[in-house]
């Protein structure tokens, strides 16, 4: 249980972020590269595999290891260096996006790529090669990483960059923790001249309008994200709201020091100064069913139309970037026990087939009675990482509610949707997925890249000691 330097594993329930899956594992939280090696040795001594985990924000089983131990990197979270001239951050890999932005925003910087929640670690975000609402413009997180340290299963530490160990660099980013444990990440961040963004709202009446708007504006907008009311059908299918955000130019903000301060960025924890946001999920739970969510989506659409009539608004960076953190633990509205929760099925499609395939998916959802409670639409661009999900095209993320009684039927429905997507040349994203199988993966990813990745995995981890439930579900026949 406890290893020679006092690193003690804790026996815990390790779960998918969406709560639809989970298993008991012994979790180790190392604080140094030496301790990462100790955890590798411990797993080997116990004769079990090791799964790598950050703060566990992948929707599915990407950081679960029901058949072995788990290494949680989130305790290795020192900010080693930040250069206020170049904006280059040198970080221990367990630093969260939240810790990073809170450190650099008062210095006039913002991470180039962030997820919709601030809680992931950089290690987890790099392993999944996450993207943000600006994927079409700046690429994925991997595109912002300059250098990283990877502790291989052998214990060897390799520094990787575009020049040094370039294969490992491009495979480990997006390699969902199968090649080694990130211990240090060097990241390029972006200078900003205000703590605020201009946000323009455009209410679209159908999917065509949304895609046309985003296509027309992607050369100039810094962020583009669409929200879809998935309950609407017919010629209104895909109706929703686009948020189009733009950084402020130098001089546009008369008092950048004040808008860049944490006081300005961090939202109050109570609504109207009274009701704690941490309790809001209890109210949301009352609406978390088909009729309730039909109403919520309709109300949001109407509110969006009103918002779009007004002038552009200023939003704080943190407020715009981390919409998912506005209500703490909102996922609990979906349930808290017995693997109740949500899955996200995020569909990536090339631009040529996207429009028709999305309409087909949305129609199929409504026909089968599995309507996503939340739909999010984004534009992407390709990148050089071996197992990247990003395409020259679009993605639509759909949140489905999981209950003990709908589980089986929902998985079947997702398989049908997956078939539509694969027919259209689409892809999936391991940070979100809990439903695709081995055959689906073979069809979704380019065979040469996949073969290269598996060869590299065999080379650095010949005994396949790094495993997760995701690996066994998707990569093992």
């Amino acid at each position: 249980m406890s290893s020679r330097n006092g690193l003690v594993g804790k026996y815990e329930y390790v779960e998918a972020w969406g709560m639809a899956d989970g298993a008991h594992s012994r979790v180790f939280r190392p604080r140094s590269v030496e301790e990462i090696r100790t955890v590798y040795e411990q797993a080997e001594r116990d004769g079990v595999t090791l799964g790598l985990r950050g703060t566990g924000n992948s929707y599915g089983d990407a950081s679960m290891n029901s058949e072995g131990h788990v290494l949680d990197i989130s305790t290795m979270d020192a900010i080693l260096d930040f250069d206020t001239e170049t904006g280059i951050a040198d970080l221990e890999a367990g630093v969260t996006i939240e810790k990073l932005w809170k450190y650099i925003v008062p210095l006039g910087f913002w991470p180039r790529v962030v997820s919709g929640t601030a809680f992931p670690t950089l290690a987890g975000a790099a392993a999944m090669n996450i993207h943000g609402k600006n994927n079409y413009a700046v690429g994925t997180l991997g595109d912002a990483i300059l250098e990283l340290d990877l502790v291989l299963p052998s214990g060897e530490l390799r520094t990787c960059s575009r020049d040094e160990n370039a294969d490992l660099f491009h495979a480990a980013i997006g390699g969902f923790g199968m090649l080694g444990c990130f211990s240090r990440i060097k990241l390029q961040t972006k200078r900003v001249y205000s703590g605020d963004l201009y946000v323009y709202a455009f209410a679209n009446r159908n999917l065509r309008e949304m895609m046309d708007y985003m296509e027309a504006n992607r050369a100039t907008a810094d962020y583009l994200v669409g929200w879809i009311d998935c309950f609407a059908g017919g010629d209104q299918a895909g109706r929703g709201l686009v948020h189009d955000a733009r950084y402020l130019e130098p001089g546009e903000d008369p008092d950048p020091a004040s808008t860049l301060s944490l006081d300005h960025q961090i939202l109050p924890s109570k609504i109207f100064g009274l009701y704690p946001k941490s309790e809001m999920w209890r109210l949301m739970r009352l609406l978390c069913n088909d009729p309730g969510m039909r109403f919520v989506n309709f109300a949001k659409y109407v509110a969006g139309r009103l918002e779009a009539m007004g002038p552009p608004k200023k939003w704080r960076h943190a407020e715009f970037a981390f919409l998912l953190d506005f209500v703490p633990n909102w996922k609990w509205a979906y349930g808290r026990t017995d693997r109740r929760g949500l899955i996200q099925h995020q569909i990536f499609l090339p631009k040529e087939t996207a429009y028709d395939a999305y309409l087909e998916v949305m129609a199929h959802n409504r026909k089968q009675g599995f309507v996503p409670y939340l739909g999010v639409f984004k534009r992407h661009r390709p990148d050089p990482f071996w197992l990247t999900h990003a395409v020259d095209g679009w993605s639509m993320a759909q949140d489905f509610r999981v209950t003990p009684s709908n589980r089986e039927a929902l998985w079947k429905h997702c398989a049908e949707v997956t078939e539509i997507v694969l027919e259209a040349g689409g892809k999936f994203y391991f940070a979100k997925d809990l439903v695709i199988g081995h055959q689906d993966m073979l069809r979704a990813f380019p065979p040469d890249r996949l073969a290269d990745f598996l060869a590299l995995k065999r080379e650095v981890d010949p005994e396949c000691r790094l495993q997760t439930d995701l690996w066994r579900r998707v990569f093992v026949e």
Partner: protein
Amino acid sequence: MPPSTAEEARPKAPVPRLSGVPAHKRRAIVVGASSGIGAAIAKRLAGEGYRVAALARREEQLEELRASCASLPGEVIVRRHDAHDADEVPALFEELVRELGGLDLLVYAPGIMPKIGATEYDTEKDLDILAVNVAGCAAWCNPAANLFRTQRDGTIIGISSIAGDRGRKGNPMYCTSKAAMNTYLEALRNRLSEVDVHVCTIRPGYVDTAMTQGLEGLFWVISPEEAARQTLAAARNRVNVRYVPLRWMWVGLVLRLIPSFVFRKLSF
């Protein structure tokens, strides 16, 4: 075999009906299960269909417990464990949860109350009490609390005592250990409330167990079985602190109200 005592001749109470707890949520660890309230709780849980891991220092009594539960719907696995031995708990805890296939309930029942003379000030005895009643309690409740926190589900029952309500002349460290337990369990309850994990503190009065044998002036004495019944009922009703039986609540209330200059004149 004909009954040899009047007690055995009495008609046996029917095996309790299976409770409303779903079958996959009937897994418990009972620490201190060789005698007294702990043994009664383990047996009662086995009667309700639980898979129970029963732990105690004395193996013969554990075997007796297992034998007496053989006909019950549940299943009892036994392990020798000395509550002094906090170091072995994390590994043992993991092993038991794996064997049970999960965990829904932890009961910490061990407690020691050595006789302390009126003019005795014995550090060794006192530290021994703390080791079992406090350190042992933390050693078991911590891993359980962490597991329950992560699965957002589970219940912890700590068997404390009404003795924790005041510092009495009779056994200073026993009272202290139970006061420590009360505060610790309350803090755990407050920590875990956000994830719906319940922590129930039981403060028994006099129960007919080895601990009270030979004590004089006992009253309102109940059997360990009755104490176990009331304990589990309180935990299921998500009661925070329950005096067992309930009327000791009034005694506790009065005890706590007696001013110190009067309390020190009292004989107990």
